[in-house]
């Protein structure tokens, strides 16, 4: 064997040994009770009482009426006449309802029994029983007064009324006991025989004396092995014994104490005690084996070797074994639980500064296959889970935004996103977002047949969203664009554009339409006609030829209408020239083009070249807003100003990906609550990659909802509400971690960083302070104040 191979083997051997040692140490360390003797507290035996209860079986006596005995004897019930059998069955059902404290249902069951029936005694009895179980003993006594004391209902009533007597243990048949105060006008003790006295004592012990409570109080008072311990092995052992003794007679008390024991074992950090408790105590209905609880317990120690594996094992066992077999839950609830867990797991694996601890060595690689797997499982478990679809789509879109993607990766992610959107629209048919996205995507890929159902659904739906209502219009534009692909189809384009003109949404400027028509002419190769149309357009619009707005509108229209590259080239020149020296472009020109760009965003009709110059121009527009407050103050109703603000927010000019950097002028007291400013602020916040400056946002959701009520523009009316909803959703999600943890250390583990409203955060976000790049007096003053702090 080579020495290299030998060294490698020795290294592995050493590693294995180290691992074994660590595990052994951990096992020893986790059990601090090895040398501690648990206190010897054992509850007294309850066996005799249990036997007495177990022997309490209703038995008919010789001569008991068949109707009375049939209430508990199936053979006798089968032998009764049909009418009587129906009544006896009703009595059975009524007793069941009464014992389950469903009093009204119990009374309803016996309401059909006629007074002349032999079962009418039971009707009276049930009425009294319902009152007695509600501790309304006077009403119970009044109902039972008229019962025949020789028949079973009367005998039971005698027992129940006598059980109220606290001195029953010392009572005898010779010396009548005192009736319970105000319980009834008759002396129920007069009706007792030996058997009834025994039953009354038994009932008193079961219902009122409750020895289990005294035993529990005494047992749980015993100290733990250590002062700091919430529950130790001794107390746990005692509780198990107690449960054995009293589970049959006091199931609710035992369950409540066991739940407390389990929670105390969960809260403290001793793995051995928790492991024992979770094994011997049955968990809640959705997690009887405490596997989910074990997952959460182990999750707290993921820094320790093995705990992460244990957590994963517990969760896998829960999802694959326990949950699918849990018949106590309905199928939809099981599916919802599985889907929610997978989604939470996916979200917890997603890379985000709010969920990842800072590291000097950079962030660990995102487990993309794990995230995909969990997201797919979440959707598979519950195809109607909107949040799972949305999270999947958002995650892929965030991946598509990454700069260093190759063309192949982009195509692959695009296909995956299309698949997600398709499944989303199938699982949640009323959802608009996937349909809007799919229409564009399918059209782009010439999958018209697949796009049509979505268009038809949109057209048929009376949806309030103006973008949905505008789909028939957009379909015409998209069709015109498609027909421009081939010269042979060009003859049909004019009709499409005419239809588009007819359907043009009121909330969109019509200024672009003539440019689209001109582009079709250019596409047809009629350059003279094109020039004439251009002149006509400029005359009508008042725009200068090759001004920025004119150039962008023409270039955009030509690109979408598939004008050949050679004809496109001269149209690029004025845009490129303006871009080279944007500082020389007038403010008025920049503000005007912002209206066109904002319309493109609203209608989702961005042309390819826009991606090259849109952001640069928008940055310049942001400069106008920042440096010339006078252009903004007092002009908030100007469509150009509104468009400029909203465009900058939409493109992400008001943020650096991590915090919102709003120009100070838009934070001035008289402007900050203007609906457009609020919408821009919320939109800018939603566009952030990571929402960790939410401490600065408070009433934006309600401000937008309020503004939408008085807004006349249908687009803004709907959009404000949409933004508010999305904003509230993000804020709510921010408060919780992936598992919805709120204010717990789990929340801190998953999402605490940045979610706490630390004072430090206020300096980073410029909600009401300054822009670090800005040199205006307000920002300089704000920076100075921050430095002084």
């Amino acid at each position, binding site marked *: 064997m080579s020495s290299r191979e030998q060294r490698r083997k020795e290294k592995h051997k050493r590693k294995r040994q180290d691992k074994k040692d660590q595990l052994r140490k951990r096992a020893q360390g986790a059990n601090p009770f090895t040398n501690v003797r648990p206190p010897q507290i054992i509850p007294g035996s309850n066996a005799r009482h249990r036997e007495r*209860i177990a022997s*309490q079986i*209703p*038995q008919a*006596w010789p001569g008991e009426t068949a109707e009375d005995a049939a*209430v*508990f004897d199936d053979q006798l019930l089968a032998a009764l006449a049909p009418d009587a059998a129906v009544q006896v069955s009703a009595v*059975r059902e009524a*007793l069941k309802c009464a*014992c389950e*404290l469903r009093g009204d249902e119990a009374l309803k069951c016996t309401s059909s029994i006629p007074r002349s029936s032999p079962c009418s005694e039971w009707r009276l009895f049930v009425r009294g*029983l319902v009152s007695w*179980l509600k501790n309304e003993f006077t009403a119970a006594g009044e109902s039972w007064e008229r019962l*025949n*004391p*020789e028949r079973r*209902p009367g005998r*039971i009533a005698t*027992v*129940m009324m006598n059980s109220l007597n606290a001195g029953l243990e010392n009572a005898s048949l010779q010396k009548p006991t005192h009736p319970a105060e105000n319980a009834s006008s008759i002396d129920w003790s007069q009706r*007792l*025989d*030996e*058997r009834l006295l025994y*039953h009354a004592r038994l009932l008193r012990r*079961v*219902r*009122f004396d*409750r020895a289990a*409570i005294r035993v*529990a*109080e005494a047992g*749980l008072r015993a100290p733990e092995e250590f002062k700091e311990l*919430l529950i130790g092995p001794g107390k746990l052992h005692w509780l198990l014994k107690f449960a054995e003794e009293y589970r049959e007679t*006091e199931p*609710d*008390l035992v369950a*409540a*104490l066991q*739940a*407390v024991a389990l*929670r105390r074992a*969960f*809260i403290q950090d001793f793995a051995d005690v928790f492991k024992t408790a979770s094994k011997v105590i049955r968990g*809640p209905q*959705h997690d009887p084996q405490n596997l989910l*609880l074990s997952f959460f317990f182990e999750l707290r120690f993921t820094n320790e070797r093995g705990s992460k594996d244990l957590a994963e094992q517990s969760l896998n066992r829960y999802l694959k074994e326990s949950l699918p077999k849990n018949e*106590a*839950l309905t199928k939809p*609830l099981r599916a*919802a*639980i599985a*889907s*929610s867990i997978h989604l939470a797991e996916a979200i917890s694996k997603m890379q985000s500064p709010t969920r990842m601890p800072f590291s000097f060595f950079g962030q660990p690689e995102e487990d993309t296959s794990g995230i995909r797997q969990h997201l797919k499982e979440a959707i598979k478990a519950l195809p109607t889970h909107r949040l799972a679809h949305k999270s999947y789509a958002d995650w892929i879109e965030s991946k598509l935004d990454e700069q260093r993607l190759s063309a192949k990766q982009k195509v692959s992610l695009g296909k995956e996103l299309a698949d997600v959107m398709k499944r989303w629209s199938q699982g949640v048919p009323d959802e608009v977002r996937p349909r809007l996205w799919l229409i564009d995507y399918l059209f782009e890929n010439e999958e018209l047949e697949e796009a049509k159902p979505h268009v038809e659904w949109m057209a048929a739906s009376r949806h309030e969203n103006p973008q949905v209502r505008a789909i028939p219009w957009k379909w015409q534009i998209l069709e015109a664009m498609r027909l421009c692909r081939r010269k042979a189809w060009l003859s049909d384009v004019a009709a499409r554009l005419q239809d588009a003109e007819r359907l043009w949404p009121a909330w969109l400027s019509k200024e672009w339409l003539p440019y689209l028509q001109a582009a079709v002419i250019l596409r047809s190769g009629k350059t003279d006609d094109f020039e004439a149309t251009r002149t006509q357009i400029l005359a009508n619009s008042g725009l200068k030829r090759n001004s920025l707005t004119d150039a962008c509108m023409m270039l955009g229209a030509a690109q979408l209408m598939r004008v050949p590259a050679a004809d496109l080239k001269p149209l690029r020149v004025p845009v490129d020239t303006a871009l080279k020296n944007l500082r020389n472009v007038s403010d008025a020109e920049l503000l005007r083009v912002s209206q066109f760009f904002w319309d493109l965003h609203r209608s989702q009709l961005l042309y390819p070249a826009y991606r090259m110059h849109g952001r640069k121009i928008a940055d310049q527009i942001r400069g106008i807003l920042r440096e010339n407050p006078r252009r903004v103050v007092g002009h908030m109703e100007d469509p150009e100003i509104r468009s400029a603000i909203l465009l900058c927010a939409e493109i992400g000019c008001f943020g650096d990906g991590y915090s919102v950097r709003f120009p100070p002028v838009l934070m001035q007291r008289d402007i900050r609550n203007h609906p457009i400013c609020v919408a821009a602020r919320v939109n800018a916040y939603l566009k952030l990659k990571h929402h960790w400056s939410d401490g600065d946002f408070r009433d934006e959701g309600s401000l937008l909802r309020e503004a939408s009520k008085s807004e006349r523009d249908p687009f803004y009316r709907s959009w404000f509400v949409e933004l508010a909803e999305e904003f*509230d959703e993000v804020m709510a999600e921010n408060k919780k971690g992936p*598992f*919805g943890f709120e204010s*717990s*250390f*789990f929340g801190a583990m998953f999402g605490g960083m940045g979610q706490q409203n630390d004072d430090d955060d206020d300096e980073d976000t410029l909600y009401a302070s300054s822009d670090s790049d800005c040199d205006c007096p307000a920002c300089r003053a704000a920076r100075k104040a921050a430095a002084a702090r």
Partner: protein
Amino acid sequence: MSTAVSDNSDPFDVLGLPRDAGESEARERYLQLVKQYPPDKSPEKFREIRAAYEAIQDPLVIARRMIRPPDMDVPEWAKTIEDQKKVLPRLTPGFVLSLGNRDENSPAVGPTQ
């Protein structure tokens, strides 16, 4: 106008349900509350209860609640016992019916029919 559960109110809190309450428990509690606050006497409260119950009809709402880890505040034994003192043990129909059993030779007592 329908009154939905306000944004900040948890439907489980409105119905007074524990964290891990299941569907049947939710329904039982809802019926109890509806009887306690009938629409003709407490229309506002009834609407609130109704909206909360409708909200938890969505299994995802119950599921999300169920998969949360337990709160980290330490539950007290004494409080649990005090609470349990108010919850009287339930009786089964069989046990209730057995209370009327009679020895064969026990004499008839009390007034006769």
